């Protein structure tokens, strides 16, 4: 016992600060376990809810055949370009709206009116304008990412204490310098929130857009699985999207910690 205690106390120390992290990992695992048991025992209809182990087998098969990688990379590329084409204009416009009262007065009503339109409802219009190719998928993601980033960036700039703008003016900052040294870094915490929300919205919309007139992507994979009644493949698609959601959140939270070190909540 006395020999074991130093290493166990070291382990305890290691785990002590990570209690929340451990709980974060354990809770979905427990859910999967309950699901597996329920499926094996026949408590749930396995035609609709196949056991996680079967889904996992399908996942391995899809990885081996390279199909999953092909669909995943197609979706990721669309997400990436959509993120750039939606996110960067949203960021610039958001800061401009936050800084300029006139700009805000002109654009606020337009943003408020267009924001609540369900993005899924404009998919037919986007298909009509941009066709069935890559462009329509990218535009769909861009539109979805645009609003959360825009709205959070405006809020972020408006939240900046007026004294920081006084300081920058008094110390001779002009135009772009104010943007770079006050507006952008000051709004960054909320911009990061907007990016997180935007990526989530992007994942929703990319799967949706790929279900219509696409030949690749996770959305296509799931839609195709429905047509050939491969329930497991559908679940693999859901699983991969869920995993992407987790990975993006973790990565973005880590990035946030690196670039917003003054907003330490831990």
């Amino acid at each position: 016992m006395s020999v074991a205690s130093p290493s166990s106390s070291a382990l305890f120390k290691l785990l002590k600060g990570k209690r929340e992290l451990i709980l974060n990992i354990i809770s979905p695992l427990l859910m999967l376990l309950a699901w597996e048991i329920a499926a094996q025992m026949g408590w749930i209809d396995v035609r609709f809810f196949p056991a996680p182990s079967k889904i996992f087998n399908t996942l391995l098969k899809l990885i081996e055949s390279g199909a999953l990688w092909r669909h995943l990379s197609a979706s990721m590329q669309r997400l990436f370009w959509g993120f750039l084409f939606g996110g960067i204009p949203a960021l610039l416009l958001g800061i401009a709206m936050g800084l300029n009262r006139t700009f805000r007065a002109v654009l606020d009503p337009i943003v408020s009116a267009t924001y609540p339109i369900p993005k899924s409802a404009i998919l037919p219009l986007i298909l009509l304008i941009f066709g069935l190719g890559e462009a329509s998928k990218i535009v769909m993601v861009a539109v979805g990412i645009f609003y959360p980033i825009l709205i959070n960036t405006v809020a972020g700039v408006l939240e900046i204490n007026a004294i920081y703008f006084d300081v920058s003016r008094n110390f001779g900052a002009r135009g772009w310098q104010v943007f770079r040294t006050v507006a952008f870094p000051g709004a960054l915490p909320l911009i990061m929130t907007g990016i997180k929300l935007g990526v989530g919205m992007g994942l929703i919309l990319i799967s949706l857009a790929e279900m219509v007139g696409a030949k690749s992507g996770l959305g296509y994979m799931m839609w195709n699985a429905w047509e050939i009644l491969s329930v497991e493949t559908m679940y693999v698609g859901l699983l991969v999207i869920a995993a992407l959601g987790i990975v993006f959140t973790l990565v973005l939270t880590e990035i946030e910690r690196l670039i917003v070190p003054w907003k330490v909540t831990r």
Partner: protein
Amino acid sequence: MNMAQQPIAATGAGADDIKIRMSELSKVFETRKGPFVAIDQLSLEIPQGCFFMIVGPSGCGKTTLLRILAGLESQSSGELIINQPKTSQRPGNSMVFQGDSLFPWMSVFDNAAYGLRMRRRPVAEINEIVGHYLARTGLRKFRDSYPHQLSGGMRQRVSIARAFANDPDILLMDEPFSALDEQNKLLLQEELLKIWEETRKTVMFITHSVDEAVTLGDRILVMSAHPGRAKSIVDVPFARPRSVLELRARPEYGEFVYHIWGHLRDEVDRARALDEASAS
């Protein structure tokens, strides 16, 4: 009471030595309840190199006055002339703000270097000047820290280093020590005086503390409130360089503070009576 209306001329300084000249400067804010006169026809001359203190009750427009000087606000009427040589490369003024004004997203060094960077000074010059003032304010070890990692006193030191490093023609200080505890306040006053002795810049310093005004200043303007007017100007008779503690131990110091209080007391009483009248 009536003397408040008269322009108060600076004594003992030639016209060429006047750094800041205000004549009948007024500031009126439009509020929902109608116009509010923050500053009423203030006329003032401040000599070059003067450590000028403005003391008065809250609501006497002292912060507004400083913001006008800083160019963050403009006067409603009257004239403000700041005498800066045309050849000067220096910025007109730098302000030490009341309360937390450091950028939370910048390190101590970046905060102190802000003015120089905005003026695109060469990196070597920035490193040298900022390094000097961080050393003078005892912050060298904290150059890479962020403001939230510092105490209130240290944050205000950075703020002072930022203003001095910018090497302005005029330093504006808006109650920079009002949020600090007594010990820290005393330390920072002492440090401020030492740094100021190096350059002897013209300083315009606002405070509500008579002690602070007498300790730091060459000349004190006592202001009245609602509307903000010049009530009187008093020259501080104590020699420089000063040590804060030694100065405060002297009997003349207490007498002088009492003397200034005499100017201020009826103002504070009047302001309070006005507040109570408007509240009821």
